[in-house]
């Protein structure tokens, strides 16, 4: 750059700056938009208020200030500004003011969600939809914090089978679950599982034609209390599992979650079978919903057991494509008596589970009815013998509203 050109550019820059200094409204709109694009929302707002004040009479400046307040998370202020703007004659036919007002109300709804005020949030989302029926954020909010059903009974049944060495077992399972919200305080959950299985002498675990012997049953019972408020959520579960010919298993588990669309959770489990073994599990995990339809989770299960310590990697993927939802879970690494809060369920095998996973497909047939199918498989190892566990179940859930 020659000195002459440099001087001219310097002079021009000075002239523009002088003009802006002399008249803060000159070029203010474009500068404000540029700062917004650069991510400096406060700067974008400052330029507008410097030109027109914080309560401008100009409709379009007020509209911009409302929008900038919304972008900066000041939902209350944005709502006030949009409300005032909608009474102006300039607002007639202006979709921006309607969309902005709806978005501000929805943003307030999300703030209430994060603050744990679900009922107020629902009212806010409904108000947002009354203003702008196309507001996707409010629809998402209402879907997410739909009023809890009075009760949600759930029934499952299916086939189970497992093999270990030369032995093969086949049977059926029944599972029931009842969730009852106690106002906004917590959700009480009672669940039970019954499995009846018999040794099959056929070559295949799927063979029904073979002679059965040595029948055994398993019954499990769970009682859980769960509470979720804003960023925090927690659950405690008491468990009992009794299998024919084995000591009854007792224990409890707790889970603490922090976060909304992303966050972490920590699970801790204590199980004990008198005269047999004690088992402690800790499962730290992180989760992330990059978009509303996809959830990812990864963690590790650390098990301290009288029969041997172990560690395993856990991962899960959830896909929500309404009305369908698919949940995939898996682990790699040895686990003993692995406890899962989803269900809840307990892998109460005497054997070690080396790897395995489950897939659950849910179909929301209506607002009240959900149908589900689930498949599960685990590789087993015990005293040098190798085997597999599998189950295939169907379930139905009804939400009483």
């Amino acid at each position: 750059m020659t000195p002459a050109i440099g001087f001219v550019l310097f002079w021009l820059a000075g002239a523009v700056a002088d003009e802006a200094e002399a008249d803060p409204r000159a070029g203010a709109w474009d500068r404000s938009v540029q700062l917004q694009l650069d991510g400096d929302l406060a700067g974008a707002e400052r330029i507008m208020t410097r030109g027109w004040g914080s309560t401008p009479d100009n409709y379009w400046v007020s509209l911009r200030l409302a929008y900038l307040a919304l972008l900066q998370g000041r939902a209350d202020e944005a709502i006030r500004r949009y409300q005032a703007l909608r009474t102006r004659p300039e607002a007639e036919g202006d979709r921006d003011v309607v969309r902005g007002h709806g978005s501000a109300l929805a943003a307030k709804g999300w703030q209430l969600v994060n603050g744990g005020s679900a009922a107020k949030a629902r009212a806010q989302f409904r108000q947002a939809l009354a203003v702008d029926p196309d507001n996707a954020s409010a629809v998402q909010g209402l879907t997410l914090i739909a009023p809890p059903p009075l009760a949600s009974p759930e029934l499952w049944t299916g086939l189970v089978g497992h093999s270990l060495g030369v032995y093969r077992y086949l049977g059926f399972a029944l599972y029931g679950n009842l969730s009852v919200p106690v106002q906004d305080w917590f959700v009480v959950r009672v669940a039970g599982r019954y499995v009846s299985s018999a040794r099959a002498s056929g070559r295949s675990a799927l063979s029904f034609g073979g002679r059965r012997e040595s029948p055994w049953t398993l019954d499990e019972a769970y009682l859980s209390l769960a509470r979720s408020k804003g960023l925090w959520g927690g659950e405690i579960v008491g468990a009992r599992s009794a299998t024919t010919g084995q000591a009854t298993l007792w224990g409890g588990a707790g889970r603490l979650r922090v976060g909304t669309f992303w966050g972490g959770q920590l699970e801790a489990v204590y199980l004990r079978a008198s005269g047999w073994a004690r088992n402690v599990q800790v499962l730290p995990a992180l989760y992330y919903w990059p978009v509303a339809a996809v959830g990812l989770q990864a963690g590790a299960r650390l098990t301290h057991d009288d029969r041997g310590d172990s560690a395993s990697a856990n991962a899960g993927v959830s896909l929500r494509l309404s009305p369908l939802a698919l949940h995939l879970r898996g682990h790699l690494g040895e686990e003993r008596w692995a406890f899962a809060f989803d269900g809840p369920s307990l892998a109460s095998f005497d054997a070690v589970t080396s790897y395995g996973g489950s897939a659950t497909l849910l179909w929301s047939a209506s607002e009240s009815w959900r149908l589900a199918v689930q498949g599960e498989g685990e590789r087993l190892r015990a005293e040098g013998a190798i085997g597999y566990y599998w189950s295939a179940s169907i379930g139905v859930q009804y939400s009483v509203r």
Partner: protein
Amino acid sequence: MTRLRAKHSRGCAGLLALGLVLAAGFTRADTPDLYRQSYALEAKGDYQAALGRMREVRKAAGASYFLSLRTGWLAYLAGDYETAEASYREAIKAKSGALEAKIGLTLVLYVAQRWKALETACKQVLAEDAMHPMARARLASSYYATGNYPDAAAIYRKLVSAFPGELDYQTGLGWALLRMGKGGEAQKLFYAVLAVSPDNPNALQGIAAK
């Protein structure tokens, strides 16, 4: 000899007086003619010549409000904006209460694209006649040109409401809205203008700019 000289002197004085009288009579008779010629030249589109006649009038009869006003107008037509501005300012100085010279000044500043000066001149007009549509429209133009789209839109919107048949106000509002990212509303305005003025360049450019 002395008598003769005195007689000659009286004769010369008489001739001088006659000359002065004749000269004065010629000037009085020539100013209307210069105006006449100026109007005729303006009608023919020869603005420079028409302006020249006004300069002759100024030399002969001195400055006046009307002369300044007309000089400003002819200078504007001739494209001599510097002279036009000076003449209109001179007219404003001569009759500070007159609105027409102030309006004339806004026209010159508008075509000369002297936006800040135009803003000031428009505000002077509007201080005396707050609803003057031409001054409001030119003020809106100055706001738009300096990137003050919100104030431009506010003025244009009121003008469109009061003068729905004035298409420039509609395109002005359209452009201001377009600059503020409200392309949808701007398009409606441009199409409304094109519906009645299919070749309107402002509206066509507005459609193309979206």
